[in-house]
């Protein structure tokens, strides 16, 4: 290294940043370390080994789902039967009404004759 380069090296010697620089960086870094809600949940999930409950929860979910579906299916079938019964009653009611009319007509016709 020649004299000029030595001068350059001296000119480009390191400088210290402001005295509170490291403190400020660490304060921000500490804030960065605070986990977000999702990360906190993930962390809890791993720490408490909650993942072990996943199969049990899945089975419970399936059973509950099955029960709810069965109830829904029964209710739908009941509704259909009710609907059929109402239609049958309506038909029966109409037929009865027509028969009554016929009887009435016949009876009044006979009286007229």
């Amino acid at each position, binding site marked *: 290294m020649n004299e000029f380069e030595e001068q350059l090296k001296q000119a*480009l010697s390191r400088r210290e940043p402001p005295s509170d620089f490291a403190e400020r960086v660490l304060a921000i870094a500490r804030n960065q370390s605070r*986990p*977000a809600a999702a990360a906190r949940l993930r962390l809890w999930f791993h720490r408490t080994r909650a993942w072990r409950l996943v199969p049990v929860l899945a089975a419970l979910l399936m059973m509950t789902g099955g029960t709810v579906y069965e109830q829904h299916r029964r209710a739908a079938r009941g509704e259909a039967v009710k609907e059929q019964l109402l239609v049958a009653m309506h038909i029966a009611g109409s037929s009865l009404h027509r028969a009554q009319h016929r009887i009435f007509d016949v009876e009044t016709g006979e009286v007229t004759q």
Partner: protein
Amino acid sequence: MVATVASGAVPAERDAALPAFAEAVEAHKAMVYSILWHFLRDRSLAEELAQDVFLELHRNWASMKSSQHILFWLRRVTSNRAIDCVRKRKARPETSLEETGEPTVLERVHDAFLSAYLERMVASLPEKQRIAIVLRYQEGMELEEIAEVLGIKAATVKTQVFRGLDLLRAKTARRLETHRHQP
């Protein structure tokens, strides 16, 4: 691994690495700040970018393999940040070495001011020459090391350093000449 942090650590686990990170900040703050200061000649900007560099290091702490890796990483990221910053500030025209004025009267008074003068001249070099000169003379890095940090060929670094030195020598010679002719 530098600290007891597992790879892919979540933020809370990074907390455990804070003491080691604090040591790294303390050990390298002058290096990072000085590269940025010599490159940008703007105290607050150098401070702001140095802070960003260390916070990025903190985010990537889990991938740091050794203290040498940290040093290499910091030099590379700092150099890239400095160059990016200058490129983004292109709206503010860069002063060329030739356009840079002669030293002030005060600077001519004594050779002790030569350092301040050289610092100012380095900051006016073209970006690539400037970063190569800063890494070579501030950090005392070999040409191959600079090439690795900047991701370019060693021969290119050599050219940049030589061109930078030539420009600085020419400008300094002119300054000394002017100084000699002063009464």
